[in-house]
């Protein structure tokens, strides 16, 4: 997978490394901005209130 991406990037090794870095940063941005905020409420790590069960758990 990563090898395939590397082979398909244009330019010499330095250019490829730079593009790879930008890709990694873009992925991290998408994760932090969209994926994690969406996933977090679905995971049972951060409920702090007392409630009557299913009603508030949704």
């Amino acid at each position, binding site marked *: 997978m990563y090898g395939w991406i590397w082979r398909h990037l244009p330019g010499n090794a330095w250019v490829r490394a730079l593009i790879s870095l930008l890709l990694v940063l873009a992925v991290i941005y998408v994760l932090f901005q969209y994926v994690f905020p969406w996933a977090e409420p679905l995971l049972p790590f951060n409920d702090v209130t007392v*409630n009557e069960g299913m009603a508030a758990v949704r």
Partner: protein
Amino acid sequence: MTTTDHGQDSEVAPPPRRRTWNRVAATISATGELLITAGLILGLFVVYSLWWTNVTADRQAKKAADAVRHDWATSSGDSKPGRLDTKDGIGFLHVPAMGKGFELLVKKGTSTNVLNEGVAGYYTDPVKSAMPWDKTGNFTLAAHRDGHGAKFHNIDKIKNGDPVVFEDRDTWYVYKVYKILPETSKYDVKVINQIPKESGKNKAGRYITLTTCTPVYTSRYRYIVWAQLVRTQKVDADRTPPKELG
């Protein structure tokens, strides 16, 4: 890919066998890459929930707190409206035991959206919270233990007898902690009753209840701290804090 000398494969392999082997190796390496990627994403999720959400929530909470302070400072002439404006926040909670200068904006509601702003929320559901200025009742609050500001992270540092102070526009409400419940079920809604019998009280009074999750980094149980009003103090022109915060 040079996969020539590999133990069981040491005799000279004929071309078709080598092709099979290459395909197996490619599958294994792709699976490995996927597993490594999954691991990295999970690691990033930990970074996100324990660090990044704090950064964004603190920023948001600071902005909201500044807005409330500004509102109080500019509308100090007329008496009523400021303190019942529940949209921006009703006031600040001070708990010296949770850290020097601990100050936490209190807003209405305990939904994820409210609490994720790095504030404490007062319950509207399942049991409606009383307000500190009500004659009797229980002022019930929740905040995050970890992530999203982690405002109640140090709730376990609170001891019996410690002061808990709520500040609104014109009054300091000084409470004293009298009972701590280090672990209870998350369905234990009785803890936020207007007369919190679980804390040993049978008479109506002016109480405050802090709730969050425990143990840290999980939300299996709830941690409860109860305090009772000792006195109130008028806010003076310089907003001098009461001696309990000194």
